[in-house]
């Protein structure tokens, strides 16, 4: 759920609660005010009627409400003296509504100068509680909707504005790749909290980049340092080999073989870290069609020996800017892979298109693990002498050039597709 919707959710929930309480308080205080006002009116009316009655005694004969809103009737003195003034709600038949409606009635008592006692009833029409409540509820719902809607709009606008540095940081972080980007520049902001967050993130990434670089540098240095002792060991054994015969010579040759395997591993690791350290910056126009042809020619004796049939289809020229060394390593590794994992009398089909080339080969009858296949040191069981780094190197080369190297199995062929970005 987005931050925006979160705020809105909390806001709408608390607003329901607040508005409900507010509505109850509002209702009661309004009713109180209404009663107060009506009762004041009735009180005023009472005084006017009593004053008028003292001047005009015909008023005292008006003992029915009829068209007016008061009625007077005489009562005995002792009852009048005991009675108290009283306001209450009652109902009365209304011609207009053709129904009984709630009215406010003041019942009071007064005496004329000639010691006659009267009971005076004055009515005033009342607001209907039920109607008021309905109206109030109605208004309340609309108010709620309006408040939420405006909150949504304001929130949307304000949040977007306030959180802009956050979204920018988020965007930057999403695009950040450890090992690819050498620095991280957080977006500039004046908001203290975001500034703090940006600085923290930048610091964290700086430390990470430094560790990553160190580690890569270490790998490169380590591989580098290994080259000389390997060279010495291999050469010593070669010298010894010249003086040995028979079984001894074979044992020595075997030892050299393993040292060479180690050398290859080491070279591949060195190459991998150099690729990842972006030490192959130089690019030139590379004609992939021609390079593929050339490399296939370089393999020709081996292909012939193993009766592997190669067919190259140039559907379109593929000429791009690419590092020349890496282009060769890429093609060599992919071709070598297609040869090594092939069977005698097998096939290799190469198709070059405008943005890609595909090298497809016969081999194992089932698809290989496309997930693990490009991982370092992944080896299919049938080859004990491969370094398990050839495809990892090819993948690294692809990534360096923002290209894709993918594997799929189709039509009985293992298909490796190298696709360059357009």
């Amino acid at each position, binding site marked *: 759920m987005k931050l925006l919707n979160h705020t809105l959710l909390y806001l709408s929930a608390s607003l329901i609660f607040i508005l409900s309480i507010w509505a109850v308080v509002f209702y009661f205080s309004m009713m109180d005010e209404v009663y107060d006002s009506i009762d004041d009116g009735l009180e005023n009316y009472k005084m006017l009627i009593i004053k008028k009655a003292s001047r005009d005694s015909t008023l005292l004969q008006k003992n029915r409400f009829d068209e007016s809103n008061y009625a007077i009737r005489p009562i005995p003195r002792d009852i009048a003296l005991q009675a108290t003034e009283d306001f209450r709600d009652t109902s009365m038949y209304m011609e207009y509504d053709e129904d009984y409606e709630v009215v406010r009635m003041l019942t009071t008592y007064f005496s004329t100068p000639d010691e006659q006692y009267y009971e005076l009833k004055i009515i005033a029409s009342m607001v209907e509680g039920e109607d008021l409540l309905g109206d109030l509820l109605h208004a309340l719902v609309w108010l709620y909707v309006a408040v939420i809607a405006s909150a949504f709009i304001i929130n949307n606008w304000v949040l977007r504005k306030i959180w802009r540095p956050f979204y920018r940081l988020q965007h930057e972080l999403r695009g950040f790749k450890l090992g690819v980007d050498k620095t991280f520049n957080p977006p500039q902001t004046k908001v203290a909290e975001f500034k703090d967050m940006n600085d923290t993130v930048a610091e964290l990434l700086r430390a990470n980049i430094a560790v990553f670089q160190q580690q890569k540098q270490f790998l490169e240095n380590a591989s*580098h340092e290994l*080259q*000389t*002792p*390997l*060279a*010495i060991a*291999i*050469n*010593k054994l*070669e*010298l010894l*080999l*010249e003086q040995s015969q028979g079984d001894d*010579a*074979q044992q*020595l*040759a*075997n030892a*050299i*073989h393993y040292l*060479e395997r180690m*050398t*290859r591993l080491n*070279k591949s690791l*060195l190459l991998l870290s*150099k690729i990842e350290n972006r*030490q192959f910056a*130089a690019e030139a126009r590379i004609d992939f069609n021609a390079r593929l042809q050339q*490399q296939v020619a*370089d*393999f020709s*004796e*081996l292909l012939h*020996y*193993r009766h592997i049939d190669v067919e190259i289809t140039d559907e379109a020229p593929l000429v791009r800017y690419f590092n020349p*060394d890496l282009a060769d*390593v890429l093609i*060599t590794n992919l*071709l*070598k892979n297609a040869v*090594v994992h092939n069977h005698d009398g097998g096939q290799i089909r190469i198709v070059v298109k405008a943005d890609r080339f595909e090298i497809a080969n016969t081999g194992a009858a089932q698809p290989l693990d496309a997930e693990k296949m490009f991982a370092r040191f992944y080896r299919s069981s049938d*080859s004990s*002498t*491969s370094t398990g780094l050839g495809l990892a190197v090819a993948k690294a080369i692809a990534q360096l050039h923002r290209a894709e190297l993918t594997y799929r199995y189709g039509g009985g062929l293992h298909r490796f597709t190298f696709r360059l970005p357009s």
Partner: protein
Amino acid sequence: MKLLIVEDEKGLRDNIAQFLNKEQYIVEVAASFQAATEKISLYDYDCILLDVGLPDGNGLNLLRELKSKQKRDNVIIISAKDSLDDKLEGLELGADDYLTKPFHLAELNARIKAVLRRKALGGGNIVRLGNMQLDFDSRTLSVDSTEVHLNRKEFDILAFFVVNKNRLIYKSALAEHVWGDHMDNADNFDFIYSQIKNLRKKLKNHGANLEIQAIYGVGYKLTV
């Protein structure tokens, strides 16, 4: 022929010296930039094997000095760095070749011989062995003055054997020399054997008086 090995690693220096002594070269060694500078200013060498990463100086500076003094010593750079930039820089400064550690001694031998051959005045880039003559410029072989047709790889194999004659050639040294990075799988040694069989047949048909001996599991040896 007089050679100088400039290499700070004792093990490597000793290996190279021991190997080259058998080739009847006069071999001298220098273990540091300082020692090498002295030797170079005092003597002339036919070929200098120069390690770039010396503890007391960059080997490339030694090369610069050599060229500024108009010396004609051939230089083969030996480097632990396998980078095209370094290679190009070395070659631009006037080095004759560039070899990356680790290397096979037979490969080093071939490189030295190629450099010395090119240096030899008037003789052309030609090597004679028994009744055979290899022309490295036109990449052709003739036996008793009759040209034998060899394909590119067959010529490379034979040339490698010839420059390393009477020496044991370890199988992958041959594979690397001829096929480079394309051939680093042990399964492929059968294939190399088959290639040599073809070559042998051609040589035999033309009456070349040499023998390529296979040493099982180890490599080959050319004897005349």
